[in-house]
């Protein structure tokens, strides 16, 4: 954690909510993906709470088989147009678009991002992904999906060209833009850029991932590393320390912020929060019992087990098939679970407050829902409990803030902004006013000099 004490908080916008059954909740709008007015309103709500950014993910393929496991990844409005609509309805909040160099070219990316930065007056960010997802290749006339090495080499050169185009672009009307004449292993780009230099100089850069290539890209070039779920607190601290150490090698130790994803299930009281968590889990459509075991959760987001008692039996190492999900699991059954099962039981207790032999007992449903891998860390509790967790992670060197994953939209967004943000502000952990107008200003990052300034320097 840097000496500057402001946390950074973003809103991960998934129209269905990040809980796979979140869209079925009574306070969710099920068709939010195509309601631009709602998307604008949710963004404006995040802005009223002074959040740093709204984050728009992306996937360049459509797989209808995800409808029960990952409905948000089936379809969505295209990120740039959505981001522009958000920019038109807000004034301060940053807007992150996901763009994949694997299926694009640097000149297009440079002008698209510069355009978004212009219309938002300096609030754009680029989440650079390279597409772990093989299905996209089939939509882009490719014979084969590129391996990680090729994708990152391509992305690194692409980023270099994009920034060179921005650095040579005209900063003032009438100024001649500078051509770049790039000739590299993958790209040949003359330039100059046709649109003006982005108000932020370089659009803020996000990336994610745990591969060595992703960590190096983060260390060398990113402003925000958005981290996926990790099994233990020790893993999270190790990831955070690794990013810092790598960034230090490029003289950027304090310039890269690590923001893990976090799903807060929050309500005024602990009991209500637990009830909400249970309610959401009750809305899941379970996988058929004959489908057992590990499932690659397509969409580039983790893998995990299927959601049924047969899979739970595998995950916990004890046969729990054929039971009513609402029934309590006998303590002697729970005593027989595997080591991995015991870790999952502890997680159930953390989320539901239920135990093997306390006043509230673990149910078969709890085992089923603790079986698939979560998209992000989940915290269930009252506003103080959620704030405690956030504070702890940031003070213990695991995070500089969080990308908030609302379980359902819009209800979970307002629950966080109305219940948790005021607690964080009261504790002096989070801003009450924006530091400026651009995303760079919220993040405390300077505008990089242009090529012209460098040469005159």
């Amino acid at each position, binding site marked *: 954690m840097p000496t500057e004490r402001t946390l950074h908080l973003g809103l991960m916008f998934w129209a269905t909510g990040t809980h796979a059954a979140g869209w*079925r909740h009574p306070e969710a709008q099920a068709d939010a993906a195509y309601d631009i007015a709602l998307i604008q309103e949710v963004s404006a709500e995040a802005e009223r709470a002074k959040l740093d950014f709204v984050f728009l993910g992306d996937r360049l393929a459509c797989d*209808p088989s995800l*409808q029960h496991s990952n409905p948000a990844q089936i379809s969505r409005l295209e990120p*740039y*147009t959505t981001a522009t609509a958000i920019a038109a309805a807000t004034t301060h909040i940053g807007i992150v678009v996901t763009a994949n160099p694997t299926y*694009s070219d640097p000149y297009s990316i440079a002008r698209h991002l510069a355009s*978004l930065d212009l219309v938002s007056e300096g609030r754009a960010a680029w989440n650079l992904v390279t597409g772990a997802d093989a299905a996209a290749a089939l939509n882009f*006339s490719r014979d084969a999906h590129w391996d990680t090495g090729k994708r990152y080499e391509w992305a690194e050169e692409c980023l270099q060209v994009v920034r060179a185009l921005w650095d040579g672009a005209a900063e003032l009307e009438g100024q001649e833009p500078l051509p770049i004449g790039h000739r590299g292993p993958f790209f040949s780009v*003359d330039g100059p850029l046709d*649109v003006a230099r982005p108000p932020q100089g370089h659009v803020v850069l996000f990336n994610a991932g745990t591969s060595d290539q992703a960590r190096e890209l983060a260390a060398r070039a990113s402003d925000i590393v958005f981290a996926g779920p990790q099994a233990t607190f020790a893993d999270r601290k190790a990831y955070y320390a690794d990013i810092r150490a790598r960034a230090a090698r490029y003289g950027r130790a304090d310039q890269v912020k690590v923001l893990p994803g976090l799903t807060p299930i929050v309500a005024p009281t602990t009991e209500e929060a637990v009830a909400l968590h249970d309610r959401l889990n009750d809305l899941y459509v379970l996988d058929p019992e004959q489908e057992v075991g590990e499932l690659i959760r397509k969409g580039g987001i983790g893998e995990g087990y299927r959601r049924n008692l047969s899979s739970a039996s595998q995950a916990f190492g004890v046969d729990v098939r054929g039971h009513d999900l609402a029934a309590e699991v006998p303590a002697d059954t729970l005593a027989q679970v595997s080591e991995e099962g015991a870790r999952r039981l502890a997680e159930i207790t953390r989320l539901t407050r239920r135990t093997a032999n306390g006043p509230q007992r673990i149910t078969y449903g709890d085992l089923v829902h603790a079986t698939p891998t979560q998209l992000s860390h989940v915290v269930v509790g009252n506003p103080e409990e959620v704030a405690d967790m956030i504070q702890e992670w940031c003070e213990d060197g695991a995070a500089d803030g969080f990308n908030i994953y609302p379980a359902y939209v819009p209800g979970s967004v307002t629950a966080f902004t109305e219940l948790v943000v005021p607690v964080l502000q009261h504790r002096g952990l989070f801003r009450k006013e924006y530091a400026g107008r651009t995303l760079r200003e919220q993040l405390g990052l300077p505008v990089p000099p242009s090529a012209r300034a460098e040469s005159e320097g």
Partner: protein
Amino acid sequence: MILGYELPGTGFRDPVRSLVTAAGAAEAGGVDYLVLDDRPAARPAGTGAPWSMVTAALLAAKTTRVGLVTNAAIAYCEPYHLARTVASLDHISHGRSGWQVISEPDPAADANHRREGVDPAVDRDARAAEFIPLVQDLWDTWEDGAFIHDKATGRFIDPARIHTLTSEGQVFKVRGPLNVVRPPQGHPVVFAPAADRQLAPAADVLTVGDPESAATARQAAGSRPVVAVVSPFVAETEAYAHELHARAGAPASDATRGVVVGDELQVAERLAGWIERGLVDGFTLRFPPSVPLETFTDLVLPRLRADERLRNEFAAADTLRGRFGLSRPANRIVERSAAAGTTRG
């Protein structure tokens, strides 16, 4: 008469505010659609407007009725990206989006987009022949009603009504389905030059240059609307209009655009004459740098709008297709599979 304004792609001091102001004034004046210029290469006249798709999304938020037609050159984008972006604009604007297909060679833009395995200067004709039908097929990969989102049953979508594409082109191999549900208009309006043999067959609206030579295009268009691209040199006096025209090098009408010169009465009459002779259905106005579009909006537009004979009978329609008198198209994938007698899914 249907009327569109092409908003300049360059020459603005403050492109964002200028574009929003111009769009608002055009909409207030009853202009049916705006064309957003786009060229992925620097131009001599100064910094360009933002990417047409971003500009369109911005204007969708700042206007309520006017159509938003984005120029996009097919040499520099992928059909999957183009299809989803224009479809998204159609959702965001509630059925006001269109796409004008650009396919002329552009060496400066080519030089910005070379990459391993891709040279935009190659395969132009083959790309042009395949691109539009492929985009339209992608828009049809979701049947209407495939997005169910029924909370009670937990059915979010109906997989039986979401389709992949089965045929591959010579240039493009795109499987689908698109990652956007079918646009409100079914197909956003596709504009292409009547004279382009590759593009014209699949377009909804055909564009011509000089209206005087539009008769052949009119015939080939069948029932499809034809609009002429016209540059109006208009001023408060005829003499000043001719002076502006002369200063611009006295361009004449040609295959790319018609040119009209005169005061507001003369320009209005010239445009009206082309409509009344049945040569074209309307105009995309391309303003010369010396003629601000406000001049046309203030001087000519009221005259055109006051003339009952020139009324766009579809002006009340709330989609861009509707304003052109175009119906919402049936889903081609469904039609094809019905024709082949196959079961869906």
